[in-house]
C-alpha cells in the first residue's frame, strides 16, 4: 500500500510539472497582395493548446478556414472555394520547441502548417511582449492552392500571416 501511494505521488508530482496553456484570445491575419490592391482578412476563431514540461513545449493551434473575414463578402466566398473548405475545413499549426525559449523575447520555431490538406514546415518568427506575436510567409503553391487572379494578374504566391496570441494557464 505504501509503495502504491509512493508511486502515485511520484507519478502525479512529475505530471504536475507539465503546464497546460489554452488560447485565451487570438487573431490570425492574412495579407494578400495583388498588382491592383492589398487586402487583409482576419479570424478570431482560433483554438489552441500548449503543453509544456520542464524540457519542451508542444502546441497545436487550429482555425476554421471559413472564419476568415475580409472587407468584401464576395472575396471571402472566393477564398472559401479556393481553400476547398468542405474538404479541408481547418488550418492548423503545430510544433515543439524548447521550454527555455519561452523566456526569450524573440525566437524562431519550426512549425508544421496544414492548409488545403497539405502540411509543410515553416520557420515562424515569434515576438513576445504582453502577448505572443507570430509571423511567417505562407506559400500558396506549396499547398497546392490555385492563386486567384483579377484582370488576368494572379495574386502573389507569398501570403504574410500574422498571429496575435494570448495564452492562459
Amino acid at each position, binding site marked *: 500500500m505504501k*509503495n502504491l501511494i*509512493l*508511486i502515485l505521488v*511520484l*507519478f502525479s508530482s*512529475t*505530471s504536475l510539472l*507539465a503546464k497546460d496553456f489554452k488560447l485565451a484570445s487570438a487573431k490570425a491575419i492574412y495579407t494578400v497582395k495583388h498588382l*491592383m*490592391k*492589398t*487586402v487583409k482578412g482576419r479570424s478570431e476563431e482560433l*483554438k*489552441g*493548446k*500548449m*503543453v509544456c*514540461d520542464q524540457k519542451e513545449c*508542444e*502546441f*497545436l493551434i*487550429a482555425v*476554421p478556414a471559413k472564419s476568415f473575414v*475580409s*472587407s*468584401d*463578402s*464576395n*472575396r471571402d*466566398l*472566393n477564398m*472559401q*472555394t*479556393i481553400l*476547398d*473548405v*468542405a*474538404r479541408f*475545413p*481547418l488550418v*492548423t499549426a*503545430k510544433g515543439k520547441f524548447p521550454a527555455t525559449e519561452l523566456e526569450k523575447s524573440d525566437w524562431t520555431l519550426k512549425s508544421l502548417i496544414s492548409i488545403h490538406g497539405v502540411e509543410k514546415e515553416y520557420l515562424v518568427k515569434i515576438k513576445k511582449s504582453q502577448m505572443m506575436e507570430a509571423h511567417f510567409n505562407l506559400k500558396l503553391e506549396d499547398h497546392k492552392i490555385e492563386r486567384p487572379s*483579377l*484582370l488576368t494578374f494572379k495574386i502573389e504566391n507569398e501570403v504574410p500571416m500574422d498571429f496575435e496570441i494570448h495564452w492562459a494557464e
Partner: protein
Amino acid sequence: MKLFWTCLLVVMFSQFAVAEVSLQDLGLGDDAVKETPQKIEFQNTMKERQRKLKRHEVLGLATLGLMAATVMTGDQGAEGNTHMYLGMATGAMYFTTAYYSLTAPKPMGVIDRGNIKWHKALAWVHFPAMVLAPILGYMYKQNEEHHRKSSSLVEQHPTVAQIGFGAFALSAALMTIEF
C-alpha cells in the same frame, strides 16, 4: 531495490505522459473535419459560382471596352452604322455578362458586405440605362433618317448612355481597386 526500479520507471514513464496535443483537446471532434454530403454539395455550389463569376468578370471587362467605343463613336451615330453595330455588340455582351452574374448560385445566409454591395447596387442604374439607351438610339436614328424632329426624351439618348457607361465603369472599378 525493486521499489527503486519501479519508481524510476514511473518517473521515466511520466515524462512521456504528456500526450501529443490533438484536435480533440481543442474541442474539435470528427464533426469539424468530416466530409458530409451537405459540405460536398456546398463546395460544388461554390465552384459553380466561381466559374460563372469568372466569366462574368471577363465578359464584363470586354463589355466595358465595347461600351467605351460605342460612347466615343456617338457623334457619328446619325451618319454611319458603326455606332449602331457597336451598340448592338455592347448590348449582347452586357446581357450575357448579366446572365452569368444573375445565375451564379449564392450560398444561403450570406449577406453582402463591402464593395460587392455597391457593385450590385449600381446595376439598378446601368441596367435601366442599358435597356433604355438602345431604344432611344433606334428612335433617334429613325427620326434622323426620316427628317423628323425627335422628342426631348429621345434626345436624351446620349445622356442615358453616358450615365449607363459611368455606372458600369464605376461598378467594374469597385471590384478591381480597393477603396
